[in-house]
Every structure is written in structure tokens, then in C-alpha cells.
């Protein structure tokens, strides 16, 4: 199973959207850290390299990262359909469930690959501001960018790491949803669009207050609210598992 997963990861790196996504995630913090309108938009004057990763998350998690995750997760199955390689794989003595589970695992790995590229870009851009201790905040902990006093490099890094781990988890259900749609439509474009449409629709459902705690979009900013991590992560896990199970069920009897 692990070898199968590694092979799926290998295939992932040959997908164009993956390469484009990783480059975009790397460049985003570099460009943002040089942006002249930072003070006007975020009220921020960068005083430390530890503040750049937050910029990357704030900008990326709004739309770019969920979009890239939806696109790539849909492509994990959709690319095989486009290339015609899905049929030869399904002709081998491999169960469909196993195939979808492995593809789901590869799709779920992508959010962290994306965030890792983003973090690398942020650290690269942050190097120009230095990584020493500073008075202020990372933008990802108490007090936002203003902070609550002096922040040591270790504490800053811990805040950033926690935020990135939480951000990755919030992207899991989007990846799983895209894999489900890919199993349903066997098309990258249709699945990515359906995923984004579902996420946007969920965002609009805030007009039904009773539903709000159950919407996965409610937790896309979990990296800024670590105190809500408990129930948030549980719900995101249930969504991920549910979409994954649906993908398996749909694909098990799907004509290819």
C-alpha cells in the first residue's frame, strides 16, 4: 500500500497544476513581503522575518490555496482519465477501493506540500528582515501583528508551525470533496468547478445561522483561531472521511 502511495506521489509531481501551484505558493510570500500597500491593507510594517509566513497564509487561504487544492485533488484522478491510463490500471488485479484510497491519500498530501512551499517562500522572503527576537507578533498568535510584547524566535516559529498545521487540516475536506467529484464526473474541470461551487455555496449559507457551526468554510481560518481547533478539527475530519467514503462508494460501480 505504501509503495502504491509513493507511486501516486511521484505521479503527482508530474502534474502541471501541482508544479504551478507549488511555484505560486513559493512566490506569493516573496511578492507580498515586497508589496508597497502592506501598511494600507493590513496595517502592517514588517519588523521581522517571522511575520512574512502570516502574510502568505492570510493571502493564500482566502482563495488561492483552496483553489489549488481543489484543482490538484481533482487532477489526481482526472489526469488519469485524460491520459487514458486509468483503464490500464483498472485492468490489473487491484481493487477500486484501494486505488481511490491511495489517490485520496495523495490528494490529502498536497495541502501540506503546498503550505511547505509557501513556508519556504516566506522564510526566504523573511530572511531579508531577520529572524531574531522582536517586539510584536507573527500575525498568527495573540495580539496579531502587534503582539503582546517580546517574542523569541522559538515562540515565533512554534506559532507559525501550529498555524500551518491547522491551515493544512482545513484544506483536507476540500481535497476529499474534489476526489469525490472526480470519481463522480471523471473530469478534472468539472470536479474542480463543482468543488469550488460547493465551497462558495457553503460560504453563502451563513445566512442560515443554525447551519453555521456545521459548515466546513466556517473553519477555513482555523489557523487564526487555535482555541476552536478541537471541535473544528473533529468536524473537518468527519467531512474528509465522509467525502472520502463517498468517493470510494461512487467509484466502486462507476463505468470507466
Amino acid at each position, binding site marked *: 500500500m505504501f509503495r502504491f502511495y509513493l507511486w501516486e506521489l511521484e505521479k503527482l509531481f508530474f502534474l502541471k497544476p501541482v508544479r504551478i501551484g507549488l511555484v505560486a505558493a513559493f512566490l506569493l510570500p516573496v511578492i507580498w513581503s515586497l508589496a508597497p500597500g502592506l501598511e494600507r491593507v493590513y496595517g502592517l510594517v514588517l519588523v521581522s522575518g517571522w511575520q512574512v509566513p502570516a502574510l502568505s497564509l492570510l493571502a493564500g487561504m482566502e482563495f488561492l490555496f483552496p483553489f489549488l487544492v481543489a484543482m490538484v485533488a481533482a487532477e489526481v484522478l482526472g489526469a488519469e482519465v485524460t491520459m487514458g491510463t486509468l483503464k490500464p490500471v483498472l485492468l490489473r*488485479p487491484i481493487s477500486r477501493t484501494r486505488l481511490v484510497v491511495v489517490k485520496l491519500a495523495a490528494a490529502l498530501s498536497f495541502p501540506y506540500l503546498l503550505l511547505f512551499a509557501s513556508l519556504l517562500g516566506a522564510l526566504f522572503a523573511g530572511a531579508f528582515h531577520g529572524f531574531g527576537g522582536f517586539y510584536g507578533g507573527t500575525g498568527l498568535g495573540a495580539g496579531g501583528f502587534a503582539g503582546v510584547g517580546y517574542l523569541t524566535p522559538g515562540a515565533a516559529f512554534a506559532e507559525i508551525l501550529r498555524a500551518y498545521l491547522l491551515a493544512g487540516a482545513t484544506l483536507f475536506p476540500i481535497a476529499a470533496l474534489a476526489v469525490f467529484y472526480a470519481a463522480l464526473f471523471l473530469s478534472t474541470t468539472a470536479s474542480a468547478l463543482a468543488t469550488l461551487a460547493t465551497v462558495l455555496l457553503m460560504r453563502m449559507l451563513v445566512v442560515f445561522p443554525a447551519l453555521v457551526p456545521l459548515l466546513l468554510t466556517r473553519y477555513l481560518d482555523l489557523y487564526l483561531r487555535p482555541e476552536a481547533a478541537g471541535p473544528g478539527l473533529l468536524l473537518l475530519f468527519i467531512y474528509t472521511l465522509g467525502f472520502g467514503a463517498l468517493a470510494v462508494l461512487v467509484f466502486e460501480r462507476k463505468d470507466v
Partner: protein
Amino acid sequence: MPALLAKNLGKRYGRRWVLTRVDFAVEPGEVYALAGPNGSGKTTIIRLVTGLAFPSAGEVRLLGENVHEAGWRARRHLGAVVEAPAAFYPHLTGRQNLERMAWMSGLKDPTARIREVLHRLELLAVADQRVGSYSLGQRQRLGIAAAILARPRVLVLDEPTSGLDPDGIQKVHELLAEEAGRGVAVLVSTHHLREISAYANRVGILSGGRLVDEVELRPDRPRYRLLVADPERAAALLKTVPGLTGVKLRGEEVLFEGEPEQAVFALAQAGIAVRELTRDHFDLYAYYRERVSGV
């Protein structure tokens, strides 16, 4: 037990049936060809028997196991090419693609076997080039190499000679005949009726999603054609000769299967003059056109 059995097979998309009540069986060592015009249901049958698509009616059994219920277990003995040209990962070489296939098929120590199939399909020279750079014909041959890689007991091929040059077509026909000779059941969809009639055992003729005819070709039993002075008397006589079978009249000609010397000797003894004796090649193409246009 047939190696491949399709029972009352049907497929429906929405309300439209694209395939109805298809029954056929392929025995071990037999080559069964599916022929029919475009859209007659050949590819649908191929997708159904390989488990890629699910039937709306009926069932498919591969070595006794239901392909759609037993899932991957039923595909242990299956080798197939379901698309022309066969699809591969373009960033990998031909050999690397086969290595992945061998691994998925559970082949232990596949290096020698991969080399063997590459050699058989004359692909050794390009084995270490990326598949993205292969010609259409090379990809198609690699597809057939992948299909026979795990020594399947049932081989299913959709238009395996599509995109091949005449040498390649000949090579594929030879290979299929060899595989059948080893006891492999071969199901092949094709438009090359004249070539396939040289070695196929049976041909199923499809039209409008139905199997309208099944022709037994028996390439192991050649048929002969006689031109004689009195065809009706000659036919009646030959029917009584032991060892001669399938005696029938076709216009002024008498057709039979068996030893030609035996037939000529019997006719000479009865005083019936033989004007001509030739091998009668069954024109599958002409027959196919007649059957399809008649539906």
C-alpha cells in the same frame, strides 16, 4: 468451463439500450473475433467483459468468476488492451511502464519477462525511451506487450492492429495465434476480417447492439470446392463417403471438408468427371457485409 462467458449481456444508458441479450463463450485456446460496424457495441462488450463498465443486464464470467462481483480477483488472469492506441504514463520509459504494470499484477522478479515481451513485440530498441516519444504503432505494440506481460489465461483486445503498419498487423496476428496455441482464450474486436479469418475459430457479428450471427471458421479444417459434371449427384455421393463432412451445394459448386484425394477417388469411381478442385476460402468479409446489411 469456458474461459470467458457472456450471458444475456445488456447495457443501457438512460432509457437507451446500446447492447441487448448478447451471449457468447470463448473456450481456452480459442480465438473469438467480434466484428461489426462502428457503434454496433464492440467496445461496449470489451468494456463489460473486462470489468471497466457494469452491465444493466446479464453477467460476465472469467474462468468461472463473475467479473463484476469478484472484482480484482477475477482479473488475475486477464490481459487486455481496451483503447487504441494503448495509453501509458508519457514521462516514463516503455520498460518503466511495464515494470509498474508487472508490479500491479503481482509478478515476482519481472525483469526477464519484461525483456521477453519487449523482444516479442520488437520494442527492445526503444524500451528505454520515454513513451511520450513513441509512435502510434509503438504505443500500440507496447499495449499488447503489457497485455501479455503477466501470462494471462484470457486476452481481450479492442482493435489491437489499429495504427499499425502491415508488418505490425501481421506480427500481432501471429502473436494472437501463438497465444491461442498456448491455451489462452482470445477475444478480439476487429475490422480486419480477412486477416482474422485465417486463425480465428469463431466470429461474432454485431449490429445495432445485438449479436446477429456467430460464424464458426474452423481454420484447422480447410474446405474445398469442386466443379463437376453433375453437381447434385456428386453432392449426394460425397455425403456417403466416410471422412467427408459439410458437403453442400453452392450454385454449380460442391463444397466439402475432408481429404480432397478421397473425394476425387469416389467421384472417379462413380464416373463423375471432375473439372476443377480448389481450396474454398470462406470470404468472411463478404458474409459479414451480407449479414450486417440484412439486419
